[in-house]
């Protein structure tokens, strides 16, 4: 087991699996891809497979590669099982479930020699290779046996492949059945139907298929105390427990489920027990300009307010972002990043808004970013973002991405927030009475952060006037040069102060030499796996610092100081975070070597390894 493997395991046999597959049984270490058509209901089936494996205590991850379309285009779901806990995406497929006539030719062509295939019998004729292990399954006939209702057959046939896959991989049928119950909750008819389908697939396979047991799931105990959750749902939980009160939003993939989940949670847990009334408001806006407008209005009036969006929404929020910065209004934007520019690939993942969100709006302004790497951080940073927004009286971005947000992840259980909410520097009527003086934009504490009052505060001193134009510390209009520069300098100071309030960077791998690596967000898993692989195969790998926010704290500077070369792994073309590092640490700019991945797929260890080896050569 590697020093940095995220999940301790108890299986003794070390895996020789890496970039090049070897002909020996792959125990709890392989990749399964289901190629199907989107809108066909395969999502539930895939979730059941995922759950069943998870329940067997085996580390597993799932990546859904789906089209920007509602029904009918190719979609792929990839499950990676890895006993050592390496659950970043892996590109090579060991077992393909080929169900989509449109993509089957290409899907089959792309398989490595020796891979296994579960092939829909209707697609038999598409098979042009003889170096694959093929299992042909008459899904049509099978589903007809368990599902009399014709219009449900397409849906239910998905559960047949769950049975087939289960049998082939040695997933216990009971676990599959448990997972089905979990998946369909209280819908007993659906449970019944799907269970029958899975059973049939399992039993039919046992009778008709050959199983060389080269790909096998064996029970482990790696998932004890873990939960399964999508990043967006984790994020919603963070806002729920962070005490969000006003949510303005406009639907956009891949961020919509942040709000869908949050609204469901709020409606369940945030109604006054006595009156049944809501302690929150979620309002769907007409567009993103309105959504961020709601948030600023609410934040100004004292609510803990947030919105979630993706690239195009970020662009539309640009003007208001500058207002939040300059008028010092707490606000949180979750950017679940997809692939841009423009509409780009709305259902693919990337880290392509880092620079854009950070600098959002015209004029001199910079916004703090929080960058979670996993569901736990999505949860924690969501709650934290509300605190920071109120503490700093500014716009805070939570930079998630589609990979984190829309895929199911296993994660440790989330901890209840121990600290009370930070509502920041707010003066009450009593405070005003005591202080006898209130100047909205005065840097009283020397940290650049002024005090504010909330509308509704019953005190003659409470009122002040908020504006996006130049102002004095007393919040009156000013075009004086000194007022302008002092204010702008204070804002810069406040921004720097944020560095110490953000989660500190984490040294994930200690450096042995003078070569380091920086990564952030969902690159984490692939980077860790890559470094482990490099260490094992090449006996040498850089250390690794994981950034969790912008602005950068002093720890980052020290890291750069200590290393001669620092690779920066990013999921974008323009080396966006590298640009920020070079901006803030020019003295180390040339040490930074961007290592870029921007094809829209979640990062995989192999590409990182390749690029690091290239860089070394």
């Amino acid at each position, binding site marked *: 087991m590697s020093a940095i493997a995220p999940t301790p395991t108890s299986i003794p046999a070390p895996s020789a699996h890496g970039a090049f597959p070897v002909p020996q049984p792959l125990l709890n270490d392989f990749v399964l891809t289901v190629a199907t058509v989107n809108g066909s209901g395969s999502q539930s089936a895939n979730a059941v497979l995922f759950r069943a494996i998870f329940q067997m205590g085996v580390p597993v991850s799932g990546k859904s590669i789906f089209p920007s379309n509602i029904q009918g285009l190719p979609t792929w779901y990839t499950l990676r099982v890895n006993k050592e806990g390496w659950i970043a995406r892996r590109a090579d497929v060991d077992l393909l479930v080929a169900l989509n006539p449109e993509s089957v030719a290409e899907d089959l062509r792309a398989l490595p020699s020796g891979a296994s295939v579960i092939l829909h019998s209707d697609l038999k004729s598409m098979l042009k290779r003889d170096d694959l292990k093929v299992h042909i399954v008459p899904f049509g006939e099978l589903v007809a046996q368990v599902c009399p209702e014709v219009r449900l057959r397409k849906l239910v046939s998905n559960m047949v492949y769950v049975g087939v896959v289960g049998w082939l991989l040695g997933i216990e049928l009971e676990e599959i059945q448990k997972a089905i119950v979990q998946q369909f909750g209280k819908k007993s008819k659906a449970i019944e139907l799907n269970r029958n389908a899975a059973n049939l697939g399992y039993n039919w396979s046992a009778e008709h298929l050959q199983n060389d047991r080269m790909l096998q799931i064996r029970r482990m105990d790696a998932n004890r*105390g873990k*939960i*399964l*959750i999508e990043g967006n749902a984790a994020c919603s*939980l963070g806002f*729920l*427990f962070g*005490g969000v*009160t*006003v949510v*303005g939003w406009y639907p956009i993939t891949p961020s919509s489920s942040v709000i869908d989940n949050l609204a469901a949670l709020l409606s369940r*847990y*945030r109604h*006054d027990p006595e*009156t*049944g*009334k*809501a*302690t*929150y*408001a979620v*309002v769907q806006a*007409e567009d993103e*300009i*309105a959504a961020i*407008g*709601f*948030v*600023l*209005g*609410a*934040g*100004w*009036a*004292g*609510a803990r307010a947030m919105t979630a969006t993706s690239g195009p929404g970020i662009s539309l929020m640009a*003007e208001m972002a500058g207002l939040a910065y300059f*008028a010092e209004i707490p606000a949180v934007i979750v950017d679940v990043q997809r692939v841009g520019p423009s509409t780009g690939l709305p259902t693919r993942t990337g880290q392509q808004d880092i620079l854009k969100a950070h600098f959002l709006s015209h004029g001199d302004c910079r916004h703090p970013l929080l960058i979670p790497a996993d569901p736990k951080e999505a949860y924690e940073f969501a709650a934290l973002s509300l605190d920071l927004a109120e503490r700093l009286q500014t716009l805070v971005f939570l930079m998630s991405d589609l990979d984190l947000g829309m895929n199911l992840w296993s994660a440790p259980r*989330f901890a*209840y*927030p121990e600290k*009370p*909410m930070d509502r920041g520097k707010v003066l009450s009527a009593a405070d005003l009475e005591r202080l006898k003086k209130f100047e909205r934009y005065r840097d009283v504490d020397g940290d650049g952060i002024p005090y504010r009052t*909330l*509308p*509704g*505060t*019953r*005190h*003659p001193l*409470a*009122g*002040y*006037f*908020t*504006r*996006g*134009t130049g102002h004095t510390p007393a919040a*009156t*209009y000013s075009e004086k040069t000194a007022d302008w520069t002092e204010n702008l300098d204070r804002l810069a100071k406040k921004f720097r102060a944020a560095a110490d309030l953000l989660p500190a960077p984490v040294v994930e791998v200690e450096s042995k030499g003078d070569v380091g690596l920086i990564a952030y967000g969902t690159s984490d898993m692939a980077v860790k796996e890559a470094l482990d692989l490099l260490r094992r195969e090449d006996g040498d790998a850089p250390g690794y610092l994981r950034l969790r926010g912008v602005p950068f704290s002093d720890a980052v500077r020290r890291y750069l100081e200590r290393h001669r070369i620092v690779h920066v792994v990013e999921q974008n073309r323009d080396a966006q975070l590298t640009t920020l590092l070079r901006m803030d640490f020019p003295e180390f700019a040339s040490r930074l070597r961007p290592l870029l991945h921007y094809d829209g797929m979640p990062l995989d260890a192999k590409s990182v390894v390749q690029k690091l080896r290239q860089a070394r050569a």
Partner: protein
Amino acid sequence: MPSAPATPPATAKAPALNRAGLPLTAYRGLPSTLCSGCGHDAITNMIIRASFEMNLEPAQVAKLSGIGCSSKTAAYFLNQSHGFNGVHGRMAAIATGVNLANHTLLNIGVSGDGDTASIGLGQFLHMVRRNVRICYIIENNGVYGLTKGQFSATADKGSTLKRGEVNEMDPIDACALAIEMGCEYVARSFSGDQKQLLNLLKGAMRYDGTALVDVVSPCITFNNHEGSTKSYKFAKEREEALHDVTYVPDYEPFFADYDHGQTHTIDLPDGARIVLKKLDRDYDPSDRVRALELLSRARDEHLFLTGLIYHHKGGPKPLTKQKKLVAEPLATLPQSRTRPSREVLESIMDSLS
């Protein structure tokens, strides 16, 4: 809503106090920096007076605006209230957020015709559709004052700019669009018609949802010439009041013996009323189609009709009622009411594992 203490106003020599215990001066703002003679200043004065006479508590008002000469005026009244002068054309969204965060506040919004009908049209209409509680005032001069006099979208067809340019398009009528979007208190007035404006503003402040007051407000610098249809001269000569408007507060006796043929009474929340006394026209403002017809005719015939164009109760609930919010402002709920318990988290975690 303003709290109206039971004690009657003081009657000493000291400046007259209203039921909130405040003198008129308490409702003033900073000195105006607008051009002298600007219609907007007259509206500011009526907002000050209406607020005083409505006994508003300054702390219970949020002043909101966009960008423009008109939007600047939010600084020129109610100096003790919180004010938010946002970005151009997006006050509607800000107001919605404020309303959600603290629905006990009265939002007073001031905007321009450019701010509302040009850049802000979409947001304005969506705010109306949501029925956000706000007294929304358009200070309508048909031009962009602050950027030096280009046509706005409310400029009338055939009207000209100072330098001669002619507007070839029909004007946007914010009142008609608001009615179409379900707004239930829609008024039009003229900055020079102080009494009418004062009463219409009071009604709008008392309204429990979006109340629109579209006020023709001449721009003395860029749109007060011959050829303008928003000049003082034009407005004064052409204004035709649909009725005589009187706001009657809840605490004043209401004489039910108004002649029913001659008056129309509108009930506002909490017992206040607006009484419309018939003038030349026989106009019933509660009929949506007639209101639209009236506005359509006014446009075609270049009439400048003022008064309460439309009032009707019974449409969608105000936004915060749709959202079934608790009685207290969301903004100041304590943590105990906004952070679910440890048990809730644990049960969620259980369901996920």
